[in-house]
């Protein structure tokens, strides 16, 4: 009997998986669904080991599920190095494993089809999360011609993966589930005829000599669209990247980033594991523990090296009520297993983060999820030439910016986690500030636009009044520039 790790019953989510499609994996038939990517379909079929590492020949499985970590590379229809986690399945596809360092040259079954589009916009927004979508709505209201690019097939950014209700102010959609906020923002974006949304379009570069932003949309293994775009203003709302940790066994299939686990569970409706250990008891770790339970996965423990959880107490209390152990002052020693995760060894640390002798515990799990923090995704900002600084309070390297979120690169704005790690509510408000500012710098909009910006800035200030934001506010001071002239 073949394995099926798909979730067919869930308290909140349902999935439109599409029609069944068949493909072969190393010669064996696999049944998948049209709306799945190759990696998702393989995971659903119980396959965890996707490649052999290049030198040590270790088995590896997907770690990020968004086309970045390179642990899911396979040969598809004779094309080597296909990122299977972002490539949709197609009927009759031939999928094969290979050592990516030693792969044969391409032997494609069909030639590459590229559609080239040259486009101009008033405002081009990279990233369709809460910040990018909000920016698009604000700029569009002012009458700007707007494009929004996102690498994912499902715009909405991190919101899409959130099944819990948000709190905060009404203006930032408090009381609504993340997925639903994404829907609200998206439908508002779609109401504006002057906004073009480009899902599955990965911005690959900004070329200063040509003044051109290029993005590539993958329409299939052999079909691509190359978007060559010129914007009068740009807003970078690329969100954040997950941090990783170095520990023995950190590359075993089954160890993955929290985001990858969320993508599998919530986007594709696939159980990434049966029993997990979650590393990191901040908001992400705690929320994902709750989501795991919703998906029918047993959370053996949520551990954090710090003496107190960084998560909102409501969330932490909720998972404690569900009897999931949150072990503070604990960290991971090693992960064991033959070809995949079989168990994890954790230990306690003292106030100086030194191991407490004899505190080692072994936990049997088949999944380890890392929720050890986020760091701003600033690559595109670098390509625009924005000046950056390392600000620990904001999670890493972030751009200098004005109060209107314009960076040191003229006409290039930043919003959301890319400007510093905060959360969806602040991302929405930053998006509005960047969107209104970009539009108004083009001479668009009038008093209403000014008013919207004023309000967004006021809400943002109000939100950041909370003591939790003291550190973040200090961080922002370090990269705040005077107004541009």
């Amino acid at each position, binding site marked *: 009997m073949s394995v099926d790790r798909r979730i067919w019953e869930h308290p909140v989510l349902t999935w439109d998986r599409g029609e069944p499609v068949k493909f072969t994996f190393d010669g064996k038939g696999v049944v998948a669904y049209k709306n799945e990517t190759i990696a998702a379909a393989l995971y659903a079929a119980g396959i965890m080991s996707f490649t052999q*590492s290049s030198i040590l020949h270790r088995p590896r499985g997907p770690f990020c599920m968004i086309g970045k970590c390179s642990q899911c590379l396979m040969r598809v229809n004779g094309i080597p190095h296909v990122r299977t986690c972002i490539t949709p399945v197609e009927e009759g596809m031939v999928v094969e494993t290979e050592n990516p360092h030693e792969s044969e040259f391409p032997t494609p079954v069909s030639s590459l089809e590229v559609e080239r589009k040259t486009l101009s916009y008033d405002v081009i927004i990279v990233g369709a999360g809460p910040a990018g979508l909000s920016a698009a709505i604000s700029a569009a209201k002012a009458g700007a011609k707007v494009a929004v690019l996102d690498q994912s097939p499902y715009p909405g950014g991190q919101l899409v993966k959130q099944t819990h209700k948000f709190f905060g102010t009404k203006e930032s959609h408090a009381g609504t589930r993340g997925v639903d906020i994404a829907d609200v923002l998206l439908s508002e974006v779609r109401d504006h005829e002057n906004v073009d949304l480009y899902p599955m379009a990965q911005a690959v570069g900004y070329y200063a000599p040509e003044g051109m932003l290029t993005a590539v949309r993958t329409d299939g293994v052999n079909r*691509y669209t190359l978007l060559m775009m010129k914007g009068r203003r740009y807003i970078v709302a690329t969100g954040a990247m997950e941090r990783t940790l170095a520990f023995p066994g950190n590359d075993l299939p089954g160890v993955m980033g929290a985001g990858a686990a969320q993508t599998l569970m919530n986007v594709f409706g696939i159980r990434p594991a049966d029993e997990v250990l979650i590393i990191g008891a901040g908001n992400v770790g705690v929320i994902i523990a709750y989501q795991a339970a919703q998906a029918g996965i047993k959370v053996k423990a949520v551990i954090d090296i710090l003496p107190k959880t960084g998560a909102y107490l409501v969330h932490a209390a909720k998972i404690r009520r569900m009897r999931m152990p949150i072990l503070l002052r604990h960290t991971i020693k090693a992960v064991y297993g033959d070809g995949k995760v079989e168990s994890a060894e954790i230990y306690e640390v003292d106030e100086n983060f030194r191991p407490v002798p004899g505190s080692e515990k072994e936990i049997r799990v088949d999944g380890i999820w890392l929720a050890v923090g986020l760091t701003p995704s600033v690559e595109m900002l670098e390509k625009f030439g924005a000046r950056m600084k390392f600000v620990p309070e904001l999670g890493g390297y972030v751009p200098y910016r004005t109060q209107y979120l314009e960076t040191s690169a003229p006409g290039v704005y930043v919003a959301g986690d890319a400007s510093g790690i905060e959360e969806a509510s602040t991302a929405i408000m930053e998006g509005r500030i960047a969107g209104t500012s970009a539009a108004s710098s083009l001479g668009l909009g009038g008093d209403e636009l000014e008013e919207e910006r004023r309000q967004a800035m006021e809400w943002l200030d109000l939100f950041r009044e909370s003591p939790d934001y003291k550190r973040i506010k200090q961080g922002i001071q370090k990269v705040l520039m005077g107004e541009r002239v």
Partner: protein
Amino acid sequence: MSEKKLHPAIICRCLDRTQEDMIGAFHMMIDFLGIDGADINAFRRFSWGTTGFCQGRGCLALMQRIYVNEMRKLDVRISPDELKYKARSPAQPVPLGIFAKNNLEEV
């Protein structure tokens, strides 16, 4: 606990560099270039980190940490701003045919 194989801690998944390999590469860099010649770019070159399929997304942050820690052992304090390494385009590996034009005369 039954006898279990202790796996290496992998820093660079793409080119299979373990924590030990990375620390070894760091010290080789210091042997060759000295502290005055070393920097994050040289570390990348001695270790091959950031040059694989993931374009540094998996390893750079871990490498920066190793760099700071190992330098501290040599009594050198490194500010994170010195460790900024500008990632190159394309931001995602893309088939080169995407950028090919039909005629040689056009390029």
